[in-house]
């Protein structure tokens, strides 16, 4: 009897360990990585004269469904393809909640605005989420927030009341954004996956830096900063708040003493340059996952690589559409994963 229990336990442990290693999924991802756009592909796209030419080239590389799609349709299709693949690879999609929570909280914002304005707009909700947007709308409409998952319940109530009583959409958004970042952070840290844990650290720290910079530019007070900034390990929020209240140079000085010292020059250059630096930092961090045959990390890295690829192509297509010089487009282009 004891032996049987022991055997069952070891079988369960073995299966669990195998599942956590995502062996099948990572092996498939290795093949899929071949189809990711490389720097050479981006150079080829840059060589195209018009947006249409770029779209044709992308269609030749298997992007979109056919070459009759618009650029935005093509990019949406590519994002959907990525999520379909991931859904095919893992049984439990909750491992990707770190990447999905952002969409849930976006949908909460949209639902609150929709109910507040008493209008019905189409296409305001994002797909690839963990909570059905209809459920969020129902919760907001009926003011029954108990039907929402625990991590969203309190913030949904608070944000809705702020919107309803003050009409301050910005404050409503800040409250939701903070809750979104906190949920993403806690899920990433609790995942036990090194890449996810580091990714959420970067994401929250970058968001905090952006909030601090914008608050200096718009002259926000301490209360605003305390409401918006999210605690993380790599930045001292109290110190960042203090610096943001004193001015931009104080933020630069403080960041120079942190692990984000490299980003200060990009911050001084422009917000776009800093955004580009942040994206490149994430790509640099995930690059070693190309050689990792186990765990969730290579899957998360693939997802981030695809998002980065889609963002890069969007910048490139938009530049070509608006006849922006190649030099200026190149400045905005991100590093590629492969």
């Amino acid at each position: 009897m004891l032996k049987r229990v022991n055997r069952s336990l070891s079988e369960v442990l073995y299966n669990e360990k195998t599942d956590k290693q995502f062996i099948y999924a990572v092996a498939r991802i290795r093949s899929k990585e071949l189809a990711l756009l490389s720097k050479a592909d981006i150079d080829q796209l840059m060589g195209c004269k018009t947006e249409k030419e770029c779209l044709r080239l992308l269609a030749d590389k298997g992007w979109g469904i056919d070459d009759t799609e618009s650029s935005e349709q093509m990019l949406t299709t590519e994002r959907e393809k990525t999520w379909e693949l991931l859904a095919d690879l893992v049984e439990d999609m909750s491992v990707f909640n770190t990447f999905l929570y952002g969409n849930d909280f976006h949908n909460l914002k949209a639902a609150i605005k929709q109910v507040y304005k008493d209008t019905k707009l189409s296409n305001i909700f994002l797909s690839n989420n963990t909570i059905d947007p209809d459920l969020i709308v129902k919760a907001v409409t009926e003011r029954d927030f108990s039907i929402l998952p625990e991590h969203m319940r309190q913030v949904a109530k608070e944000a809705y009341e702020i919107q309803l009583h003050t009409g301050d959409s910005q404050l409503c958004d800040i409250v939701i954004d903070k809750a979104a970042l906190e949920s993403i952070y806690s899920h990433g840290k609790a995942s036990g996956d090194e890449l996810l844990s580091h990714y959420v650290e970067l994401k929250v720290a970058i968001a905090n830096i952006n909030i601090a910079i914008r608050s200096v530019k718009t002259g926000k007070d301490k209360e605003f900063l305390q409401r918006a900034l999210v605690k993380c390990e790599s930045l001292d929020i109290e110190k960042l708040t203090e610096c943001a209240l004193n001015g931009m140079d104080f933020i630069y000085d403080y960041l120079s003493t942190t692990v984000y010292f490299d980003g200060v020059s990009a911050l001084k250059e422009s917000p776009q340059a800093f955004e580009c630096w942040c994206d490149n930092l994430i790509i640099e961090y995930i690059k070693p996952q190309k050689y990792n045959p186990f765990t969730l990390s290579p899957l998360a890295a693939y997802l981030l690589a695809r998002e980065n690829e889609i963002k890069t192509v969007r910048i490139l297509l938009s530049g070509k559409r608006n006849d922006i010089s190649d030099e200026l487009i190149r400045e905005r282009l991100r590093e590629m994963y492969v």
Partner: protein
Amino acid sequence: MKVNLNDFGIVLAVIGATLAALIPGIASAKAVSKGGIAGAGVITEDPSLFGKVLILQLLPGTQGIYGLLIAFITFSQIGVLGGSGDISFAKGLLYFAACMPMIIVGYSSAIRQSNASIASMGVVAKKPDQFGKAMIFPAMVETYAILALLISMLAVNGISGLNI
């Protein structure tokens, strides 16, 4: 009732031989299973890689065979497969010890070889023409399984000639 310790010589030898078949066998089954899972992932995207992936999957399967071989030789030497089963306690203990390299190294090398095989499948998935190089990495782990097989085999054969 007086217990004769020498009666347990055969018991120890049989335990050693059984474990030699059992432990590397279990490890190989786990390892080949893991390789199969990774192989299935590669084949889903490119079925033409089946032959290459199959070789990588089967590499960690050899430890089970080596364990079986040691068990077979030990059973032959101690008379389980025919002959006299009169083994002293000391000799039984020596047979048990002789099986240990295959038991321990067989287990750990199979598991580690499967990890190397899976990593090599990643190489094959991306660069099928590099299969030869990719196969070398898991094959290197085999060296230690072969060394363990060799020492266990020499020890089991040598013990039979000892007069103890």
